């Protein structure tokens, strides 16, 4: 591959200034950047993997409690957020395409829409979190399930009463185990939201420099790499939504 590199070096304009000193040419620099991003995303998969493992373990151990906790989540809000995020991935892909074709106006536009959709997602997430705190669904000493739930009060009175229940009735749910569900919910969606915030920061950075005209069809690696990251964060949510929200649907 090294032979083919030599030909492209004498590109003019911003492409030569964007070439770091230790690369032979833009192609090599782009290759390194893309591979670096993919390796970084693999570390992200392993990072989230630890939490997915915890989820898998406790869900298989306590399926009823997980279903009970899941029913407290709003499928409507979660569903809207899913649509919002998928939409943002589409606009992000359009932004990368606009950068490739050198359409600066479209690039700025699509980046702005992506940012807006990302912020919408975070806004809806904030509404959901507030609701959870108000209903005492955040795990800890103040944790309780809703008043209309008879199982919760039973649990509060006799936490070890599971054996005494007749079989025909619904199984008594252990409040601690429902808390485990909510803790995993907060840990995973919180970590996801943190990644969204970082992504929004990256998008703002891109918009700022697009307006300055830094990106050209020869050099748009930052747009492309942010795109990869944004799609990754999107895909994590595609897994989180059914695992957390849709779990309690059957019954």
């Amino acid at each position, binding site marked *: 591959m090294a032979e083919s590199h030599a030909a492209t070096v004498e590109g003019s304009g911003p492409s030569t200034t964007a070439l770091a000193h230790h690369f032979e040419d833009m192609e090599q620099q782009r290759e390194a950047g893309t*591979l670096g991003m993919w390796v970084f995303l693999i570390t992200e998969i*392993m990072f989230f993997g630890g939490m997915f493992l915890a989820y898998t373990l406790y869900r298989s151990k306590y399926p009823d409690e997980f279903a009970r906790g899941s029913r407290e989540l709003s499928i409507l809000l979660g569903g809207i957020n899913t649509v919002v995020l998928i939409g943002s991935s589409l606009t992000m892909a359009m932004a990368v395409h606009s950068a490739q074709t050198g359409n600066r106006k479209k690039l700025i536009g699509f980046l702005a829409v992506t940012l807006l959709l990302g912020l919408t997602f975070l806004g809806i997430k904030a509404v959901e979190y507030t609701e959870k705190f108000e209903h005492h669904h955040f795990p800890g000493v103040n944790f309780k399930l809703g008043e209309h739930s008879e199982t919760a009060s039973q649990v509060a009175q006799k936490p070890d009463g599971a054996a005494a229940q007749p079989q025909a009735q619904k199984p008594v749910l252990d409040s601690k185990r429902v808390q485990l569900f909510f803790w995993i919910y907060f840990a995973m969606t919180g970590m996801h939201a943190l990644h969204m915030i970082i992504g929004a920061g990256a998008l703002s950075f891109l918009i700022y420099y697009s307006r300055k005209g830094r990106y050209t069809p020869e050099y748009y690696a930052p747009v492309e790499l942010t795109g990869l990251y944004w799609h990754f964060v999107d895909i994590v949510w595609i897994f989180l939504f059914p695992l957390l929200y849709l779990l309690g649907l059957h019954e």
Partner: protein
Amino acid sequence: MISTAPKPSEVIVPPQRHYLNAGYGVKSWLLTTDHKRIGLLYLASITLFFFLGGAFATIIRLELATPAGDLVSSENYNKFFTMHGVVMIFFFLIPSVPAVLGNFLIPLMIGAKDVAFPRLNLLSWYVYNIGAIITLYAIIAGGVDTGWTFYAPLSTTYSNTNVMATGVGIFITGFSSILTGLNFIVTIHTLRAPGLTWLKMPLFLWAHYATSLIQVLGTPVIAITILLLAFERAVHVGIFDPALGGDPVLFQHLFWFYSHPAVYIMILPSMGIVSEIVATFVRKNIFGYKFIAFSSIAIAVFGFLVWGHHMFVSSQSVYAGMVFSFLSMAVAIPSAVKVFNWTATLYKSSVSYQTPMLYAFGFIGLFTIGGLTGLFLAALGFDVHVHDTYFVVAHFHYIMVGGAIMGYLGGLHYWWPKISGRMYPEGWAKLGVLTIFVGFNLTFFPQFLLGYMGMPRRYHAYSEEFQVLNVMSSAGASILAVGYLLPMIYLIWSMRYGPVASANPWPSTGLEWRTSSPPPPENFEKTPVVTWHAYEFKPRDQAEIVGEF
């Protein structure tokens, strides 16, 4: 380009311009993106932590010289062995070879100007130091006593020491390890010089590639584990403490999923060093190049499938135990492939017994003992007998100290002329390696016997019948300490007073020897084109090396 070994009569002139005199002043070091300077920055940081960890070990060995717990209280003893482990593992062994020698050598060995992401490389050093400073704060503020394993619920709920600060320190430092691994993977993939195909690469690069895979795949898991542990400790909601409905064994699984492969982060780079040294000092093409190269990858892959052997007695099912036992033994195959191939390279060769080669011999012998006792521990029945005894302590010190540090010091001597432009004093260096070898064996061999006899680890007092062996161990530790101080003193001395080194003093075949010592800031005057295999040596009487570029 100098490509021949100098004749003794020749006066060697150091290069006019090199990376060490390319800029002066604190700023030229702290803001450098030169991989060679960053390697030296790491060298300074980890050396500091090596001697800090050594100081904790000294206290441990002093306490254990007598059966009664008379030097430190049991609480403080818990802190000292914990901090010894934390400092040595996370702040010395993990970064040791990759961050110092890997950083310095990988771009040189592949004929590149720098690593793929020089600024991330510098960032990784800062991240390391931030984590290190936070951990130092935890140590000064009173230490931590959970053992370096941080098992829940002791770490999440019951320990009253600085678990939080230590955890945060390790969490942050983990990112420096990820950045280093990421950088090396991309560097080796994209920046190799024209003609340098994968199967022409020096084995040092294969070893570092495998190491980087582990760093990139394993470290994020310990990061999320520590994060969950920290939250659990801070707000008492979480997933590990049974009092909160959680499962403490989940912590052990997550912890060892990183921490077992972490052992291979420590040993694989040293194996790469030994491959380089053995080939150079017998002046022969290494035996079984492809087998050694792919055994590094095999160790990285198998290494991720054996973590359960740390939990044979932690409520893990017997069937899982059997699978993990089998897989743990399977790691011995790629490890043995390496040892056999090094030995086969030595067969019927004429060896130059210079210091790096002596370290390599030390590595091969001590690693073999450490590896074989690892097989004992992988056997389910025997492991129950020696679980949490000094047998385990001796085993992993043979791997990490006898193996990893021997390789690290061997590599430091081997590449010292390239790094500093000066030769180390050979006589002192030979005395050093001998002292380390004797001291090491006297320290840790008795611990195999102690463990087999049933002395548990992590206690500050023991029965009287164990005293003779413990005194031997403590005596060995003081010899070992002298052995480690020697290289530090004479290497620093040699930076100023050592004889000036030629570009290729051994001589060897690698690209790093085909540029001046020390190399210029951009490594090579022109991009090399590689036409030779990594270990293509000419016969000994012809001093020149194969290939020009």
